């Protein structure tokens, strides 16, 4: 999505362009908004945080002699007397993907200066995120009532609880922060902060621009991305 032209100069694509970008002075990420580059650097550091959590989970699960709780049964829901494996987790996954799709469309409509569509889609994304957090709260409540604690649980290896609460809790925190910002930015879009050259933002003299929606989108897609890995390694493995 970056501009291949800077002040009329055509930037070279591919690896040739990369060597010229990195070898030149001034800016390395040419045609990339500084806020977007900084969000990516933040997401890279966040990737390392979540990787460390998942790797420590792998180490903990791999080194215990006690059987690991069977996630398919631990996370099952009873619907009409029938136990459906991972039902809640599957619904949570679909809700998060839905909100990821609305976010991607919001970015697209933002760049097309379609204020109303962009605003409604950001709002829909926020509501999707809120639904996800609500279902996660329900899941935590259910497991805590069943006796799952960070130091013990009735299903198997004691480490299960600490990894579960740490990993899903950290992810849930990211979702919650995302939801707060999505509501703020839905307001900013509807209020026209990015229209007619942009309105001055908070704590800055710089004018707003729809690129902020793409930066917000990067964060939101990252939250979805992390869930893909948690879903695979924690719930399915």
């Amino acid at each position, binding site marked *: *999505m*970056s*501009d291949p032209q*800077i*002040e009329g100069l055509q930037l070279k*694509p591919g*690896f040739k*362009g*990369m060597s010229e*970008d*990195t070898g030149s002075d001034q800016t*390395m*990420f*040419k*045609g*990339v*908004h*500084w806020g977007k*580059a900084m969000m*990516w650097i933040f997401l*890279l550091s966040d*990737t*390392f945080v979540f*990787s*460390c959590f998942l*790797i*420590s989970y*792998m*180490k*903990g699960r*791999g*080194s*215990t*002699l006690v059987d690991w709780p069977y996630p*398919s049964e631990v996370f099952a829901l009873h619907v009409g007397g029938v136990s459906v*494996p*991972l039902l809640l987790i*599957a619904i949570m996954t679909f809700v998060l*993907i839905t909100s*990821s*799709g609305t*976010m*991607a*469309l919001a970015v*697209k409509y933002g*760049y097309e200066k379609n204020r109303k569509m962009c605003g409604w889609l950001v709002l829909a994304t926020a509501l999707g995120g809120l639904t996800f957090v609500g279902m996660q709260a329900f899941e935590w409540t259910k497991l805590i009532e069943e006796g799952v604690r960070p130091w013990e649980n009735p299903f198997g290896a004691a480490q299960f609880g600490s990894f579960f609460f740490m990993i899903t809790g950290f992810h849930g925190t990211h979702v919650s922060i995302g939801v707060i910002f999505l509501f703020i930015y839905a307001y900013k879009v509807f209020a026209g902060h990015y229209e007619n050259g942009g309105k001055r933002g908070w704590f800055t003299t710089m004018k707003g*621009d729809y690129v902020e929606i*793409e930066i917000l*989108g*990067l964060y939101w*897609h*990252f939250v*979805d*991305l992390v869930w*893909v*890995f948690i*879903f*695979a390694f924690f719930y*399915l*493995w």
Partner: protein
Amino acid sequence: MVKAEKKEQSASTHKIGIYMWIWGLLFVLSFFSYMVDWYNFQGMLRWSLILFFMFLKAGLIMAFFMHLFWERYALVNVLLWPMTAIACFIFLMVAEFEYTLFSRAFYFVVGGGA
């Protein structure tokens, strides 16, 4: 400077179809990975299917929803090469958990060498 900053905004948008396709694919792939659990596949088949669908989903999200497919290589390479460090860390910790597992089995279950 003012002119340069203005030029930094992305100019092009993509057709809505590409987002719809990726969105649909993500739903289908999620459904498939849920089916892995539903049909209770076990062993290598289960693990390879889980990893396959996981990497496919992650790749689609990063490439299209996060626009990495259309970004400058300077940014893409800065973001993707550090992942090799994570891969190295995984290999180290696999060796570590195997050693810990062996030690626990040897000293707690077998009772040590004595």
